[in-house]
């Protein structure tokens, strides 16, 4: 597995740095810094995925800077491997915000695999929505951009819930959260059932969800998601509202109004017939398709068939 961004190595030990250079050459071109202070500028600008810190020298100053850095959520995902001399006692981890450690003598046989594992782990668990446990925006962006960079052909679907706000106003946030959890599970399980490998589901936030699938299956899967949504959504209403198939709530201006049961709108786009270079282009088109879909009453999916 190759590191997409450079690995940062902080050490003054010439033997160590040349060992590291030789060991990781195949997966990354590492950048070397004498101490944490001189690495900061690069870290702020490039937000690397991996940092290796030699604990042998300048320990206090380096650790202080590292801890400040790691306590900012933006750099929280940066995986830090601390290298300890063989005879050195390990600190309380509370005082050193590392993600893993390694002894100096183990570098030769272990380092490469440790770095690979930590990059792979970071890819898996980055930024999870606490409600649905689905990955959020950073991962979504990365998923789409990686596929574009590799020249893959794929479909992207944007889903959102119609009349979610009046439902939330009528029943409260707790019930609204249940619906969001339901939609997250529904999309995840339908997508994984139809395409177990190479698909992706993310939660943009609120009632917005995104999923990536092969172009050949995404439309059919979306239709199933919409069907199941319609079948399940009644469960989340009180019996009376469910029977009447409408609720009393307030609109954005605060006026009392009648709303239908929630439906789901899904917009789909893909790069079969046209090129997208950047994440934002493809997400803009998917979002446009979703807005087309929202204009139609009831649960609805819209597939992008334009070629320009």
């Amino acid at each position, binding site marked *: 597995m190759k590191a997409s961004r450079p690995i940062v190595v902080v050490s003054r030990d010439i033997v160590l740095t040349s060992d590291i250079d030789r060991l990781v050459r195949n997966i990354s071109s590492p950048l070397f810094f004498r101490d944490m202070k001189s690495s900061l500028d690069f870290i702020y600008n490039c937000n690397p995925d991996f940092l290796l810190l030699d604990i042998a020298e300048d320990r206090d100053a380096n650790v202080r800077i590292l801890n400040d850095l790691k306590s900012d959520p933006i750099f929280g995902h940066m995986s830090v491997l601390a290298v300890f001399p063989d005879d050195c006692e390990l600190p309380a981890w509370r005082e050193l915000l590392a993600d893993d450690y390694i002894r100096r003598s183990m570098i030769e046989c272990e380092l490469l695999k440790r770095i690979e594992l930590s990059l792979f782990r970071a890819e898996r668990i980055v930024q999870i929505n606490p409600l649905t446990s689905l990955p959020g925006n950073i991962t979504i962006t990365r998923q789409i951009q990686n596929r574009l960079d590799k020249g893959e052909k794929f479909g992207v679907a944007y889903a959102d819930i119609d009349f979610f706000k009046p439902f939330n106003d009528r029943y409260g946030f707790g019930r609204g959260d*249940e619906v969001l*959890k*339901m939609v997250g*599970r*529904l999309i*995840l*399980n*339908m997508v*994984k*059932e139809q395409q177990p490998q190479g698909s992706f589901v993310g939660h943009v936030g609120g009632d917005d969800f995104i999923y990536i699938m092969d172009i050949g299956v995404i439309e059919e899967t979306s239709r199933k998601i919409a069907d*199941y949504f319609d*079948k*399940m959504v*009644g*469960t*989340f209403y009180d*019996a009376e509202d*469910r*029977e009447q198939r409408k609720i009393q709530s307030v609109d954005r201006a605060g006026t009392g109004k009648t709303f239908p049961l929630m439906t789901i709108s899904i917009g789909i786009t893909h790069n079969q017939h046209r090129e997208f270079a950047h994440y934002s282009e493809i997400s803009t088109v998917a979002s446009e398709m979703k807005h087309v879909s929202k204009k139609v009453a009831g649960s609805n999916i819209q597939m992008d068939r334009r070629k320009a």
Partner: protein
Amino acid sequence: MDPKLLRAQIERIDTLPTIPSVLKKLLAVIENPKVSLTEVGNFIQSDPVLTSRVLKMVNSPIYGFPGRISAVQQALILLGLNVVRGLLLGVSVFEVMQKSMVGLWEHSLGCAIAARIIAKKKNISEPEEISIAGLLHDIGKVVMILRYKEEYEEVIKEAETKDLLIIEAEKSIFDITHADSGSWIAKRWNFPQSLVEIIEYHHKPSLSRSLPMQTAIVHLADLLTRSVGFGFSGDNHVPAVNPAAWELLNLSDADLRDIFDEMDDAFSEAEAFLIGDES
């Protein structure tokens, strides 16, 4: 026996075993890599124990839908195929089988089918949910047989010698009935209130406050399934229909004929499915 103590003991039950013939079929379902959610769902909702296992999981506070889900197909969509596979892997069977158990399983399936048919006839909006209530209406019997095997054998003997209904014999020996024990466990496992209520009142449908029609449907489905002799609920004769429930259902002779016709077709299909198990 002291009902409070009984309730405490019953509520401690975490999992119910199924009957051996189901287990064989279950392994075939789990091991099929191409099995679809619909197929797994159809299989699960033919067995009261598998169904209660799935509903227990999806309605647990950990999963996040407490008291919300009463349809198997919905539960599967929310849990996902992998979770359900794992859930089915942990299913056990009764170590010592009473011969009446297979009959009880068939009776439960029959009642599920009949309840769906009647619900459709009455234009109830969610016939699947009533069908599940029909499937689970006697879950209290499974609970009692599992927890109080010897005492329950006495119930059966007492019913036979004194010519009582099972529910009357339960009352005389336990001071509670399977409707009580079933509703306790359903409540304990966070099943939706509607399911708890139907299980609790399927012998006394006029006591149901919020779901009188649904409860009446399961009550009638129970009796019709016995009357055509599909499966064996434990009783040798069929008790009378509750008059208030019958009035509420308001079924014409033609309606009843349709219901019996549809039950006939559906039961022969189910029978083929059950016989397919025996091999």
